[in-house]
């Protein structure tokens, strides 16, 4: 690369290696602690508003900052089906079945994370 000097190249290598190691470590750690994951936690402005049993195919609606956020669970996967936001990033993200991948609707302040279940986890369901 003619635009990069020796130090720039080292910086790029450090960034790639460092971020890859970080990615591998996170993947390993979360996979190790989340075997048998079945519960999705939906939070609004850092407050948990819904726990979803991932084994049941269903649709849910929660209220976000810019409007209603429609959530769908199917075949142990979850997605934001529809929401109101400038770029619709979280609905474009599509289906998620791994606890490694949170769904973040930043303009709506909605966060969906899949975690390992605990006893009596399902508080309520919204149909």
């Amino acid at each position, binding site marked *: 690369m003619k*635009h990069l000097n020796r130090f*720039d190249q080292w*910086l*790029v290598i450090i*960034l790639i290696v460092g971020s890859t190691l970080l*990615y591998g470590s996170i993947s390993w750690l979360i996979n190790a602690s989340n075997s048998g994951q079945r519960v999705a936690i939906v939070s609004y402005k850092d407050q948990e508003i819904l726990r979803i049993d991932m084994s049941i195919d269903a649709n849910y609606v929660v209220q976000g900052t810019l409007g209603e956020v429609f959530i769908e669970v199917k075949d142990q996967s979850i997605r934001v089906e529809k929401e109101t936001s400038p770029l619709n990033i979280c609905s*474009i993200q599509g289906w998620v079945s791994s606890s*490694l991948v949170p769904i973040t609707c930043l303009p709506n302040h909605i966060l969906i994370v899949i975690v390992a279940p605990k006893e009596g986890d399902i508080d309520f369901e919204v149909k």
Partner: protein
Amino acid sequence: MNSKANVKNMMIITMLMAMSIVFHLIEPVLPIPVPGVKLGLANILGLIALMLFGIKTMYAVNLSRVLIASLLRGILFGTGFWVSLSGVLISTTFVALLYKTNKFSVVGLSIAAAAFHNVGQVLMIMLIYSSVFMIYWMPPLIWLSIPTGLLTGILATGALQRLRVSK
């Protein structure tokens, strides 16, 4: 003569600030194939400020960009503002540290700025949402920041060559 040069420098810095605010405002509407990823065109102006006037001016250009653009978009002190501010503060600080070593080119500094901007943003999102899971996004964003930083670095180098010729 000295005051003339001061006025000229002040005008250039003001224009850099104005252009960085414009880039910051128009960038979200530019079509990028990867959702949530931005080119970071506003970083070009911060780098030009660094190379022409030094570290303090780079801080001034970058911080004023976040403050004024957030004010214009009506999100001052909202979530987006804090995410932008943390990204800018961390990236500007790292670029300043690397610049002081005198070992990195403009392109290298641009890549560092892009990468650490993402690091700062993810750290702030982790803090706001109290979720360590968000760190999962950091490595892919760092990978993507390398080509975007390379592009903005090349653009900044070209702009600097023209600016120095015209000076």
